[in-house]
């Protein structure tokens, strides 16, 4: 079966729906980034080049709480690692020319949560490829437009704390975390990670408590493998 006109129309409609969400999400990012101490250009470079929501929020979150550049980069990379796994999956769906240089340089930039979900959710090859590229292009444009608008708004706001904007970053992390708490293991890991990070806040430099929490899933999985063997 090949994708028909109405199938592709459905892909476009779904992608535009996600795009509206990306516009608002991008605007939140822009506002939070500027409130965290980045300027408008730095904020836009993140959305253009990093182009991965959770990593971007993490980087500005660590910078905003006074963490070092190294800790900020570490948090962004650890959150960005999941995209590598999406890439492995997409490499089996997309045509070879899309995953080979030079085209892979553009394909790679669009390997994120939403494009993977849209492509993997279709059963026809042409539809999968269309869903990936169409969703990716819509998201890239709207995410960046939203970011710029949010950053300019954030710059216009004088004192971020008086508006409560310092609560926006942790609220954003909570909203990103929420749908990932469906199973018991995830909830345990989330609780252990929060406790680990909080225990380190008084003694470790800013940014380090968040990075230390990355050890929790490692220990959880090692422990489970040890129990099984």
């Amino acid at each position, binding site marked *: 079966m090949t994708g028909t006109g109405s199938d592709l129309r459905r892909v476009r409609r779904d992608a535009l729906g996600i795009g509206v969400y990306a516009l*608002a*999400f991008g605007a*939140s990012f822009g506002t939070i980034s500027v409130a965290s101490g980045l300027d408008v250009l730095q904020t836009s*470079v*993140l959305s253009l*080049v990093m182009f991965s929501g*959770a990593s971007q929020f*993490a980087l500005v*979150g660590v*910078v905003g709480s006074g963490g070092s550049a*190294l800790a*900020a*980069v570490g*948090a*962004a*990379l650890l*959150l960005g*690692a*999941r*995209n*590598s*796994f*999406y*890439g*492995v999956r*997409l*490499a089996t769906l997309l045509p070879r020319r899309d*995953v080979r240089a030079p085209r*892979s340089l553009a394909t*790679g930039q669009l*390997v994120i949560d939403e494009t993977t979900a849209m492509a993997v959710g279709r059963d026809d090859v042409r539809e999968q490829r269309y869903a990936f590229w169409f969703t990716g292009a819509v998201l890239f444009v709207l995410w960046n437009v939203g970011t710029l608008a949010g950053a300019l708004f954030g710059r216009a706001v004088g004192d971020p704390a*008086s508006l*409560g*904007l310092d*609560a926006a*970053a*942790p*609220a954003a*992390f909570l*909203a990103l*975390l929420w749908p990932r708490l469906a199973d018991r293991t*995830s909830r345990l890991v*989330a*609780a*252990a*990670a*929060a406790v680990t*990070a*909080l225990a380190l*806040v*008084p003694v470790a430099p*800013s940014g380090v*408590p968040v990075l*230390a*929490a*990355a050890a*929790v*899933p490692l220990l959880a999985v090692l422990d*489970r*493998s040890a129990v099984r063997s």
Partner: protein
Amino acid sequence: MIWGAVVVGSVGVYLLKLAGLSLPGRVLERPAVRSVAALLPVALLSALVAVGTVDGSGGITLDARVGGLAAAVVALLLRAPFVVVLVVATATTGALRAVG
């Protein structure tokens, strides 16, 4: 310093995306690696929520942000969309500061 984090972090995250497409999938397909990768965002996001809510000048500070995050939890339980959750958290925190 911020520029360094922006440039290195951006290029690094981009290379991670590219790596999945280009590298042979065998390493990343091991079950233990997949489990850790699935739980990493959970751990980091949870730590970022905790630290972002209570950190302040080298220690733990309980202020209006805690009320804002509690309001965000209520919004999430009511299935509010992302932006509404942020607005609720921000407005609650701002309001608590204005009256406190």
